């Protein structure tokens, strides 16, 4: 099935995601300039957030795999000489040439590893050491052979973050993973202009009247304030397939979807947050579930931008009205195969789509979404 998550998040002045000139990212939509948060920025903020880590099933993105394996080998009782050699040889993994990395005990390519993968590598190395019997024979093993020891790339268990967000590696010994999630760039429901904060840093000690007067430093920071429409989808068949080598796969998936929705709601990108502290929660969360995977972003609700100035009763309410009208219109016109539609909008209870299940508590919404997975018919 296809699970689609829609949110409206209204921010105070912030600069969450900036372009090469330091200004908040923008794009044109419906012929009008909008604020934008790139999908890569959103995904990273979710992937690294504490809320997401509640799942406790993560990979680490690193080049320090050799050291991690070395540590595990020591725990398994392997002797120091062997461990040091193994660590050096492992630096050649995921390297096209298969030669050791001269620049330290790290691999040349950064890859996400799960705990199970580190364990498997350690076990494979230990088995090789036992097979060789002495350090001379072990020394002769080339890094390329180590690649082969771990060539069970196909049956490697993959962690939740890799299954959701994907992984691309150019070595043949680690499998690429196609992301189960699609995340759109967040776009503001209204037109945006760039605003700039002119600031000075005043010296605490040097005063006017001394030789130097005025500010110690002058600068400016660009910002804007937007109500963003965010869209993300999860293909549960791809997710299930990605997690095929995980024990407790179904249990993990049932926990994963509500944790992800919660993460999307609670997490805000970290760009310039020390300056702006724009930490908000969504005013609207709508989650849909479709049997036929026809993805649809309701962004066209905002093709004609919501009027940001003099908006009555207010910007968010007008955004929600356009949103719910558009959902109803698409529902009727296309007869979309929506099995469930959960809706949550604590501030504006009267504004909701014609066909939906309304939830007053956010946890009730996420709980309901977890329940849908039980009906899922794996392909």
């Amino acid at each position, binding site marked *: 099935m*296809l699970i689609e998550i829609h949110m409206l998040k209204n921010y105070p002045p912030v600069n969450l995601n900036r372009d090469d000139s330091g200004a908040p990212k923008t794009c044109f939509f*419906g012929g009008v300039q909008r604020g934008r948060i790139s999908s890569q920025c959103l995904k990273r903020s979710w992937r690294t957030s504490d809320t997401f880590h509640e799942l406790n099933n993560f990979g680490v993105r690193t*080049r320090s795999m050799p050291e991690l394996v070395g540590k595990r080998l020591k725990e398994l009782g392997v002797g120091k000489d062997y461990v040091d050699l193994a660590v050096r040889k492992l630096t050649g993994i995921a390297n096209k040439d298969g030669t050791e*990395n001269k620049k330290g005990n790290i691999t040349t390519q950064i890859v996400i590893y799960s705990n199970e993968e580190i364990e498997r590598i350690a076990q494979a190395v230990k088995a090789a050491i036992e097979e060789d019997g002495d350090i001379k024979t072990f020394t002769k093993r080339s890094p390329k052979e180590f690649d082969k020891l771990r060539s069970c790339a196909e049956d490697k268990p993959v962690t939740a973050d890799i299954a959701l967000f994907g992984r691309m590696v150019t070595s043949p010994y680690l499998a690429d993973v196609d992301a189960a999630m*699609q*995340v759109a760039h967040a776009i503001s429901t209204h037109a945006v202009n760039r605003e700039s904060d002119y600031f000075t840093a005043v010296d605490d000690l040097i005063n006017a009247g001394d030789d130097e007067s005025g500010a110690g430093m002058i600068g400016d920071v660009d910002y804007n304030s937007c109500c963003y429409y965010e869209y993300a989808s999860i293909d549960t068949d791809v997710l299930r397939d990605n997690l095929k080598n995980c024990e407790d796969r179904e249990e993990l998936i049932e926990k994963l979807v509500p944790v992800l929705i919660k993460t999307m709601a609670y997490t805000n990108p970290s760009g310039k947050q020390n300056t702006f502290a724009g930490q908000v929660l969504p005013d609207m969360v709508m989650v849909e579930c479709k049997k*036929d995977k026809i993805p649809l972003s309701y962004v*066209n609700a905002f093709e004609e931008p919501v009027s940001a100035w003099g908006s009555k009763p207010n910007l968010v309410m007008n955004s929600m009205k356009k949103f719910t009208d558009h959902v109803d219109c698409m529902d009727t016109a296309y007869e979309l195969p929506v099995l469930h539609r959960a809706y949550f909008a604590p501030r504006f209870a009267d504004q909701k789509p014609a066909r939906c299940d309304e939830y007053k508590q956010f946890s009730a919404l996420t709980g309901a979404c977890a329940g849908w997975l039980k009906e899922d018919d794996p392909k």
Partner: protein
Amino acid sequence: MKIIRFPFAAPLQSWGEDARWDTRSTAVRPTKSGIIGFLGCCLGYPRGDERLNRLNAELNVAIRMDRPGQILTDFQTVQGTGGIFMNAEGKNRTGGGTIITPKQYLQDAWFTVYLQGDKSLLEECLDAMRHPRWTPYLGRKNCVPSVPVIPELIDAETLEDAVTCFSDADRKHCEESIAVEIDLHAGNVTGNTERIYYRNDNVLHAERNEYSPRLVKNYVISSGGDRI
């Protein structure tokens, strides 16, 4: 003959034709390889599958640029851990621990795609697009359609005729003069108001980034359907 048509409309979409190295560009209209890839996603054909080559050979494509859109270059960066990246020699990359990988998109574009082929093949595609095996997207995974990509089966003498039919709903989003690009072997070379050129987007082996040239012609029509 039978033809299917469907919209490719989204706030952002991206069709790489000559996109390599750090900056990934987009062409100004969908590529045939991108369209075949979209069908492959719906049909459940993985990258590099031979059936994709068959689809490419047996389908003729026309693209109508209802709304051409504008190019957006998204500033994207990838950070190295600990501020370091390695180069292919295993040495520290000069230029620091962040790689800049700009990505181009077409913003605010709306294309109507027409496919012509055997009736049974078209029906197979139609069914797959209504019940996709994997969730499709318009070029990149973050390019989510804003109009559902649900195809309709229509009757027309030729692809050229099909392209000139505008419904009232179509006219709402179309510009006044609209460019059309058609697979050349599907039509005839007529008149001198046509530009003929090659696009490097016939699928050979997508996983290895191998494409062969496809001859197309390009001309402009009004929203009334007349040639300009």
